[in-house]
């Protein structure tokens, strides 16, 4: 019987082989090929030239045009992440305080849009956000503005639509942190003299931080690499890293440069996410250890 609990050597590898092969085949290999591609050189006359050169990296890292794109993408992702925290945390709390049938029902309502393609949802937003769209008509109808607000082909519209697309990920993450919370701690805080707001900020929220952090990482990473929403709502005017990569690949046909941008985006994402993670985990060590 002792054998049953100690697996044969190699069994874990054999069992995870299908998943590993899939992971290697569809993720690591293309990624490696992209990395190799980024060191090739593109020649307008002769196409892609094999070889090893850092010209593409030098071009992206020194050209102000690309700096703008990267900074724009970073700010957009930060903005979307901040909005998701701002809306997602209260939304989750409201959800958690609902009575039995309603909380489950509304969770489905919130997560439901994940079942619809991002492209379809984004096209929906572009209908709503157009100059003659529902939102602009309503705003002018009640007299808040006289001119239509430019949502389409602007950063504002992209951030609004991306926040909507990514909010469910934040809610799932905070929801799972909330499930682990001892529901009595808020009462404990209040019995010790803290108002409900103080009790939330000092007692409940710090314990939700792991959930907020993991939600933020997902939202940040997804919005930094988002393609459909910026390209449909932002168009050419609001160029972000993902759409710039697309343009290099399919419009300029400069694959090596596109690959370089993609690799740099990946690196930037990793640096920012790991850095923030470390920082927050160190600051709130006790919450994460529990």
């Amino acid at each position: 019987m002792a054998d049953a609990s100690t697996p044969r050597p190699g069994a874990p590898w054999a069992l995870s082989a299908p998943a590993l092969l899939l992971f290697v085949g569809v993720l690591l290999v293309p990624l490696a090929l992209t990395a190799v591609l980024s060191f090739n050189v593109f020649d307008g006359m002769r196409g892609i030239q094999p070889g090893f050169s850092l010209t593409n990296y030098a071009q992206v890292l020194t050209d102000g045009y690309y700096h703008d794109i990267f900074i724009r993408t970073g700010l957009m992702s930060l903005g979307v992440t901040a909005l998701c925290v701002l809306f997602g945390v209260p939304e989750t709390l409201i959800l958690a305080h609902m009575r039995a049938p309603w909380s489950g029902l509304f969770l489905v309502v919130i997560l439901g849009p994940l079942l619809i393609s991002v492209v379809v949802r984004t096209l929906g937003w572009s209908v709503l956000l157009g100059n003659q769209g529902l939102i602009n008509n309503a705003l002018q109808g009640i007299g808040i503005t006289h001119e239509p607000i430019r949502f389409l082909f602007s950063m504002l519209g992209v951030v609004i639509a991306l926040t909507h697309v990514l909010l469910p990920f934040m809610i799932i993450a905070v929801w799972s942190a909330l499930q682990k919370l001892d529901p009595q701690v808020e009462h404990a805080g209040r019995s010790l003299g803290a108002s409900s707001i103080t009790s939330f900020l000092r007692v409940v929220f710090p314990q939700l931080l792991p959930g907020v952090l993991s939600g933020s990482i997902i939202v940040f990473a997804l919005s930094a690499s988002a393609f459909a929403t910026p390209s449909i709502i932002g168009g050419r005017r609001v160029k972000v890293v993902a759409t710039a990569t697309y343009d290099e690949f399919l419009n300029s046909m400069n694959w090596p440069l596109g690959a370089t941008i993609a690799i740099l985006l990946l690196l930037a994402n990793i640096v920012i996410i790991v850095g923030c993670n470390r920082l927050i985990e160190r600051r709130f060590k006790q919450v994460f250890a529990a």
Partner: protein
Amino acid sequence: MSFLSLRALTKTYPGNAQVVRGLNLDVEQGEFISLLGPSGCGKTTTLQMVAGFANPTSGHVYLNGKDISGIRPEKRDMGLVFQGYALFPHMTVAQNVGFGLEMRKMPRTQAAGRIEEALAMVRLHGLGSRYPRELSGGQRQRVAIARALAIRPQVLLLDEPMSNLDAKLRGEMHVEMRALQRQLGITTILVTHDQVEAMTMSDRIAVMSEGKIAQLGTPFDVYDRPASGFASSFLGQTNVIPGRVTEVREHCAMVQAGPCLMRIPHAGNKISGDVGVYIRPERLRLAAVGAGNLPGTVKTRLFLGNLWLYEVESALGKLRLTSANLGEQLPKEGENIGLAWRDEDLRAIPGEPANG
């Protein structure tokens, strides 16, 4: 009016029956009172209304003569100890204990002294810099008590505080908590379903059933002179024998139960008709065959260490009996014996089905 007073307190949840029904309770200053009852009897809801986390549907809570029914929980100045302790995992023990003082804007140096003092009270000196997850269950519980006491509340509310501790530790905490409560003279309400806990710690016990107080009295009174079959069977074990009152005299009633005519003392309350005769297992005694009040046969005999637990078949049905383990030779299973009791050990309680 007494120090803490609950008047006609009622709580109805939408769609549900009344959880608490017109409950009245007076707690004197410095008194330790337990709300004892099975789950669903309304004891926790009552505590929540005292603490301010549940609004009474009707009725009032008075503290020091002042109606506090509408006051928010953070303004009530009550210390709470929760079943799961509800410690703040992201704060050290000292920060946990000091949280209430911080909310009261107490200067840091003064607060540090209070925190030390509170930790010393629960014998946790020097553990202030630990985090809750680094402590054992018993220590966490002490932190929860220290945190509630540090604010020097007017009332201490304990919501099943010992139920997560193992039996031995629980017993020790009962004694310690009681000593601490006496020493501080703090008015305390304990909610529990554990009768031993209620009896060891309380000045008075309020036995609750279906949203009302079924009986209120000292632990001795409630155990020894139960007012109802519910109180009797909820506190400790008891034998119930169906009987019928045949005659009521000045100080006692004659009750016919099976072949026995029992003379049962009563305290002036009227009883008649069908009654349940209650007798505690420790008040039934073993006697030699032919002696005692009733013959019987030992069905089972269990050794509990300090006690022997007997189940005896008799004309009055199966009766439970305990006998202290004093090293004597006691009857074995299958032996015929006699059962003996004294009249004053019997209680006749009317009005309830006698099959409890």
